[in-house]
């Protein structure tokens, strides 16, 4: 039902953008995508702050993610983003019943297996960690009112979440590193950007209590999440203003962003013994999501984003749909005291 609704909504947005583009004239496009990073950079020496979050309902329990991002233009071609996040997606420890083991006393053997994940449990808010992202723009082809740019990025997540699914996310779920390419192309009112990347998550480990007290010192549990290939496509269209006249004009932009991810199966060890992965959420998977979004930019600086995410092909097991995303962002330019922007 939700998938059908998502597909219909996606078709409507594509149709609306297509109809609006009929009146396309030579003017400027938008690449300030709400979810994906474009190949362009934060201006050198400029500081940006972005607060963003997401919400979805998991069997009646609302799951929130709140993030604060610090952005800085280190050089004209290098941008650094540092993000910290809070969420109630996970408990501070792995679920007690995530894994179980059977004792084969006859053969003096223990078999470790994964259980199904229980959904809708209430978790407290907790600090997930810090995410560092560095982007270097290496291709710049500028023309009047259009450009093509390419950038390479690297990211690292110091995340300490008791993540219990295979899919990695360096922003809030798993520690590890990632790298990839970004290509952004703009012409007239349109902006198109593609991201292809690789995520290599790290491990999560903790000592779990043995319910049978067979292991009085607890069971050392280690999870290695699946490596992931990321392939995202974003399209943007400037709805208003039709023509730029001054900085006080509000911008309204429409976006359609596709996020796809393929990831491998998780590997789990308990006391050094490999665990049989029999839970779908810990197995390999792929999916394509679509995020139609709208953006408002006030006085050419203060930016508000709103997007709704839905599955297009298969689905992610780490979240439920629809997922609502909001964001607010502003740049702070270091200028001379007597230099005031003419509006």
């Amino acid at each position: 039902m939700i998938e059908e609704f998502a597909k219909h909504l996606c078709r409507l947005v594509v149709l609306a953008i297509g109809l609006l583009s009929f009146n396309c004239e030579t003017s400027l496009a938008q690449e300030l995508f709400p979810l994906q990073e474009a190949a362009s950079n934060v201006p050198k020496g400029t500081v940006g702050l972005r607060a963003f979050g997401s919400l979805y309902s998991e069997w009646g329990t609302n799951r929130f993610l709140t993030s604060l991002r610090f952005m800085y233009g280190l050089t004209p071609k290098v941008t650094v983003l540092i993000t910290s996040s809070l969420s109630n997606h996970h408990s501070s420890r792995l679920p007690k019943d995530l894994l179980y083991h059977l004792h084969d006393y006859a053969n003096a053997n223990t078999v470790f297996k994964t259980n199904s994940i229980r959904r809708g449990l209430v978790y407290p808010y907790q600090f997930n960690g810090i995410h560092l992202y560095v982007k270097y723009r290496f291709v710049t082809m500028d023309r009047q009112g259009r450009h093509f740019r390419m950038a390479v990025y690297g990211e690292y997540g110091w995340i300490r979440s008791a993540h219990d699914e295979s899919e990695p996310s360096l922003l809030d779920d798993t520690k590890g590193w990632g790298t990839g390419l970004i290509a952004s192309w703009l012409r007239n009112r349109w902006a198109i950007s593609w991201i292809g990347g690789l995520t290599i998550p790290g491990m999560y480990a903790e000592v779990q209590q043995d319910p049978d007290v067979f292991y009085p010192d607890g069971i050392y549990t280690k999870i290695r999440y699946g490596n992931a290939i990321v392939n995202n496509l974003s399209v943007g269209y400037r709805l208003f203003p039709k023509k730029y006249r001054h900085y006080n004009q509000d911008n309204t932009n429409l976006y359609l962003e596709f996020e796809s991810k393929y990831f491998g199966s998780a590997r789990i060890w308990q006391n050094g013994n490999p665990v049989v992965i029999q839970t779908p959420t810990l197995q390999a998977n792929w999916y394509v999501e679509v995020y139609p979004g709208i953006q408002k930019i006030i006085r050419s600086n203060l930016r508000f984003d709103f997007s709704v995410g839905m599955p297009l092909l298969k689905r992610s097991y780490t979240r439920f749909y629809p997922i609502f995303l909001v964001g607010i962002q502003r740049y702070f330019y270091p200028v001379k005291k007597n230099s005031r922007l003419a509006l």
Partner: protein
Amino acid sequence: MPGSTIEYRPTYTVVQYGWVIKFGQQKVTMQFKVNPFRVNPSNLAFMYIRSVLLVAVLSTVVAKGQQLNLMEIGIDGLTCSLCSRSVEMSLRKLDFVQTVYMDLEKTQGRIYFKPELDPQPDKIAQAVKNAGYSVRFLTAVFRLTAGSSKGKCFSIGKNTFQILPFRPDLTWSARHAAKENRSVVQANPVGLDEQAFRFIGKQYLTKTEYTRYRKTILEPTPDSCKGSSVYKITPIDPQ
């Protein structure tokens, strides 16, 4: 400048397919049998001949007692008002910049300088680059008055300017922008002895232009143009 009604006076008087150029009391008349405004291969030859004549004339004049108070800049790669704002704020960080006015739709702007400081065009280009964009053109109007000659060069403050021959294909975008500005953005009064020039160099040209004219640009500066800051310029109008 929003709200300004200052008249922009041409630097030359147009007669039938020609001009009367005045440098103070001196007057030079040039007239042609075809319309030199039409850019076609045959006219390009005329333009080139005129440019040689122009350099010959300009090489006998220097800027005398003048200040460089404004420049016009075209910026490539701008795609939104937020981007234009980033460029403007980057330009405003320069200590010699008084104020900046950006035309968001045409992605070009006008930079006014503080009278007590010498503007540095290379820092202007670097500021645009720092904001993440590229310079399409950078132009300035110089008041050229008869006086002591320094060859094809003249100095204003600490800056020395070397005049290269007029290249119609190289200066088309700047000339086009200047002509548009005369009707859209009002400029400071420009006397009959004033002339608009485009800055020439890797940081002031598009990549295509630079590749095409690299050889000319990299030619060594003559001894008469030596100085701490030497900038190469070419006239944007063929008179």
